[in-house]
């Protein structure tokens, strides 16, 4: 799936119309977020580690 197709699929899932003139910058931001998602995914976590929804520092 190309980045354009990915954007279209995700926007469709949210019933969100993305104007053509916004696409370039949104794609650039999605590419940046993808880099951070990769860093988040790269770290090994135990399966029983819970998300920090009710976070207490």
């Amino acid at each position, binding site marked *: 799936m190309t980045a354009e197709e990915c*954007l279209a699929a*995700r*926007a469709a899932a*949210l019933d*969100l*119309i*993305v*104007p053509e003139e*916004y696409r370039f*910058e*949104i794609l*650039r*931001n*999605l590419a*940046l*977020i993808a*880099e*951070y*998602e990769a*860093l*988040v*995914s*790269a*770290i090994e*976590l135990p399966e029983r*580690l*819970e*998300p*920090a*929804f009710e*976070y*207490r*520092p």
Partner: protein
Amino acid sequence: MRAVEISRAVRAGEISAVSAIEASLARVKTRDGTVNAVTRLLSERALEQARRIDGLVARGQDPGPLAGVPFGIKDLFDVEGLVTTAGSRVLREMPPATQDAVLVRRLVEAGAIPLATTNMDEFAYGFATDNAHHGLTRNPHDTDRLAGGSSGGSAAGVAAGYFPLSLGSDTNGSIRVPASLCGVWGLRATQNRLSTEGSFPFVASLDTVGPFTASAADLRAVVEAVTGERLPPVETGSLRLARLIGWFASDLSTEMAQALSEFCHALKIVREVDVPDVAAARAAAFVISASEGGSLHLERLRDQAVLYDPAVRDRLLAGALVPAPSVFRAHRVRRHFRSKMHEAFRDADLLIAPAVTGEAPLCDNPTLMIGGKAVPARANLGIYTQPLTLAGFPVLTVPLHVSGLPLGVQVVAPPGREDRLIAFGEALEQSGLARSRILED
């Protein structure tokens, strides 16, 4: 004047609260054409409250510990009678706030006086205080340079001498970055310690609110006023200090590397701590911020996208499209990083790290060098603050006593230990290692 000096003089009847407010208003009118820290002056309310405080003093009644201290309010806190804009046109048709935000109210109850609302990045999404609707806030110490953001108006207002105290919010560094670049004190308190009630959210999971001040002593007075608790005494000489290295020692400018080195040398800090997975922590904070911010604005973005600052709009739209598994995983990384941060305090009571890479970037070339590449300041000034956000530990920004443009360091404490941070800050101030940079009349 520092907040504690103003309140002492007002309480003693040496100056009137009205004269303190009039002096602040005059400074704003003289200087803010260039700095652009203020979005709305609250003159009428401020003078009315000042007269009330002067009346209390005249009758021998207690006007509160912060009597007559003018303060600035980031434009995302509710102020009774005003529309809370969060720096955006998008909210301008909303009804005015019916009451002050909790933090504003507590300061008012302590005798402090709201003087102005302050500029910010739209919806707090940025580190530059470059607002498409209100313009750019400039650094009072060099108006060709950024003040930092997103609470840049509040930091610049203190640095410009408009008020010795202001309120900001810090999600990924929005207090710590501008405090460092403007040379003032800033506190990101422990996650959830200071009430965010009555403030417009950015990323509720990570949002905090807190003060900028002109001195460490002011910080103590403010924290005690808004929490209603006396901070216990701390023996600062016995605190075990350590410097964060690894991620926090990369990409430093020459000026920051030297200032940080001299600071650690003066304090005889030899212990170094390399917290693992900092890059993942920053990434997780980024992913959570993007997706939660995007989600918050999704409904408005469907039909009012054109009203947003284009740079903010595109980040929010992209964030709204982040898939749920990435967000859940980022929250698990948060739990993981929390445990690593607790381990970092096994042999230390306070951790030292830079707040920013170096001096304030130029307005006409808002970049900084990361990994040998020039990257946009607006998105990257928080490179050292954003990972610590994820842990939610309290962090004090200390203005270093340097000869060039302001530089700040972060001092990190375990959760709930703001008492250590503030006592340490006061000791640094007394020793001359820290000093805020405030424009004189």
